[in-house]
């Protein structure tokens, strides 16, 4: 084989290529990420999970919860909404501007709208149109804000408000994004299901909380014990056919509590620069400086914090 060494060298380069592309560069780009700030609140994000929730991540790993649950939300696009937040000083100019944007309202409806603020004036539009409308409405110190609404089937299902991004998993080890949705996505389960008792009952007997669920029960995360003096405050309240026999109670083991703490810590509710949502942008910033009311609006509209 006279090309033997050549083939070997080229194969080595091919290996090195894929390694550089999908190991080294991602490590430099994603692996070197640091904490960022939310917009517009400017809070540090993400914070490390609380201790109990970090323990819960290990329970999640040990029991292979990621076999059935993903933690990845997709987003197909974003739309913009225009929200009228304040009327300002020149109500008649605002009224005519509003009627120009939405002629189908009629003067009477438009007037009542202006008394009940904030009002969503325009939905499901793109950024350019939203900017133009917000600018038109920003007469006489009126405040029109643009709200960014991420779209996609996952979000429409109520699984979260925005897509998941690399920052959401910055402090997790291991990162278990999951592959197959045999169960619902859990990326934002902490905001969707805030009640820890619901989770405990669901882990003990999934079908009492979700009829027809294919999730297996995780009874090994609980123990049945004799009621000592007073019933434990942690004891599960179960329907009679599942409840422990009299004098006994079913309480979660530490692993169950940790797992529920982890589930409660799963939230993608921070609006980030890379994945913004529902950010109210002051309309004033879109106004030309020569506008007659620019001085007034500039003073009333604080810039984004």
């Amino acid at each position, binding site marked *: *084989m006279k090309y033997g060494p050549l083939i070997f060298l080229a194969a080595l380069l091919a290996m090195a290529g894929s390694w550089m592309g999908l190991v080294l560069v*991602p490590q430099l780009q994603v692996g070197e990420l640091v904490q960022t700030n939310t917009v517009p609140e400017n809070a540090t994000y993400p914070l490390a999970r609380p201790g109990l929730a970090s323990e819960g991540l290990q329970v999640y790993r040990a*029991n*292979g919860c*990621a076999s059935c649950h993903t933690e990845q939300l997709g987003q197909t696009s974003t739309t913009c909404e225009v929200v009228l937040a304040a009327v300002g000083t020149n109500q008649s100019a605002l009224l005519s501007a509003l009627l120009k944007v939405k002629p189908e309202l009629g003067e009477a409806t438009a007037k009542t709208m202006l008394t009940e603020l904030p009002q969503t004036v325009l939905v499901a539009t793109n950024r350019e149109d939203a900017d133009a409308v917000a600018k038109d409405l920003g007469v006489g110190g009126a405040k029109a804000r643009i709200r960014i609404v991420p779209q996609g089937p996952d979000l429409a299902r109520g699984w979260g408000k925005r897509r998941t991004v690399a920052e959401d998993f910055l402090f*997790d080890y291991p990162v278990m994004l999951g592959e197959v949705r045999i169960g619902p996505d859990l990326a934002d389960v902490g905001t969707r299901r805030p009640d820890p008792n619901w989770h405990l009952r669901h882990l003990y007997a999934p079908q009492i909380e979700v009829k027809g669920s294919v999730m297996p*029960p995780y009874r090994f995360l609980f123990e049945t014990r004799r009621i000592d003096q007073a019933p434990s405050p942690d004891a599960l309240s179960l329907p009679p056919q599942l409840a422990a026999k009299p004098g006994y109670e079913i309480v979660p083991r530490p692993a169950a509590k940790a797992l529920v703490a982890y589930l409660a810590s799963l939230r993608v509710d921070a609006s980030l620069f890379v994945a913004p949502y529902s950010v109210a942008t002051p309309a004033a910033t879109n106004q030309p400086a020569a506008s007659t009311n620019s001085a007034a609006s500039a003073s009333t509209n604080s810039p984004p914090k």
Partner: protein
Amino acid sequence: MNERPSLSPGTNLVAPPTVSDLELSCRLPLLVLFISAAVWFFIGSLCALLVSIKFHAPAFLAEPAWLTYGRLRPAGFDAFLYGGCLQAGLGVGIWLLADLGRTLAPRLALTWGAAFWNFAVTIGFLGVLAGDSTGFVGLEMPSYSAVPLFVGYVLLGVFSVLLFHRRRDPVAFPSQWLLLAALFWFPWIYSTAELLLVAYPVRGVAQAVIDWWYSNNLSVVWLTLAGFAAVFYMVARHARRPLHSHYLALMVFWLMLLFVSWAGIPNSAPVPVWMPTASTIATVLLVIPIIALALNVHGTLAGNYAVLRGNAPLQFVLFGVAAFVAANLMRVCGTLADSGQELHFTWFTVATRQLHAYGFFAMVMFGAVYEILPRIMGLAFPWPRLVRLHFGLAAAGIVLLVVPLGIAGVVQDFQLLNPSVPFLDISRTSLAFLRVSTIGDLLLAASQFLFLGNVLALVAQFYRVRTKAAYLLVTADLFKPAGAKV
């Protein structure tokens, strides 16, 4: 094998197994590798069957923690992949390198390698069941199994490379390049994944990216390289002609290494968008190796398909080639049709992976083992009908497993894209398909039992023949005078 002289072909009492020195040198390591692979295939398919039953009765075996779905499924898949597929692949690879290079295999080193590998897979399997999984898909086996696994691999891999190095014929057959690449590919990806995910873990989502890279390289690139090494060997051998085109084979080799090793990152991943894009392009480029591989196999067998009749090993291999084409077309179409970013979250992904790993790789390995074992043992399989039954059950099982799951995935995709369909309805719709796929799992478990039975029956037959020969040899002096009297 120190009793070999007493069984030299000179003894004419009973026909002892006659094999060449080359076949004899491979006997011990390959027996260890193939029998253990058959055991792991069986364990893996039993786990898959139990996991599948859990869908119909969620409380079934939910109680001891180690039998819960989330532990049993990855443990079973790792048993199948590392214990079954990789082990059988390494065994078949050793045979190909020895046979094509006409060199004797180093018996002891390879056997030790196989022993380490099996020790590692055993503790890894038990570790996952015990809850020590690393949490990384395809790399679940805990860190304490990584060192013995790597030691076992180094023993098997280094001596396999030496087999290639010492080959008599300097011109290498395409199978040899494919195997050589596979032999170098595994330690590269495995050490990267173990070091960057388990030993010195990287931060955040970079873990997920490396994990996707590793699983794709193992289950697509490695299995294709090692699988097609066996396919080319078997097809050329049975067609009794050289491989149709070395250039097509070389092209496949390069495309797999250069491009397909970039695939694997799904569209919805929370990473910079160039990564899934690069993966999508790489996956679409998979079309070229699919066509080239199919053309090469067809070209070699063209006009000669009659050799398939009654030839169980070749039937396994050709089923594997068909499954390879189907699985990878599913992969390409799935990537292209995944504009809504939901398809890869469905059973479609599972169906594709099973068709590739089981329908393609495992089936090719069964065919190769059925070809190789009679040669190294010098005996035919005692019950050829059971070999054909294994083929029938496995083929039916794979079809019944993959077709319902594939359809379930497409239906699930449409339902996930429509937010007005409640999630429970989606899982209820999938259940109808899962009922059929459980039958597929049942057939596969039965077929694995037959495989193990066939391999063990051949070994038992071997020892029966050998014991008889030894008995006759020892008792020859007793019987000869008696015969002379009559």
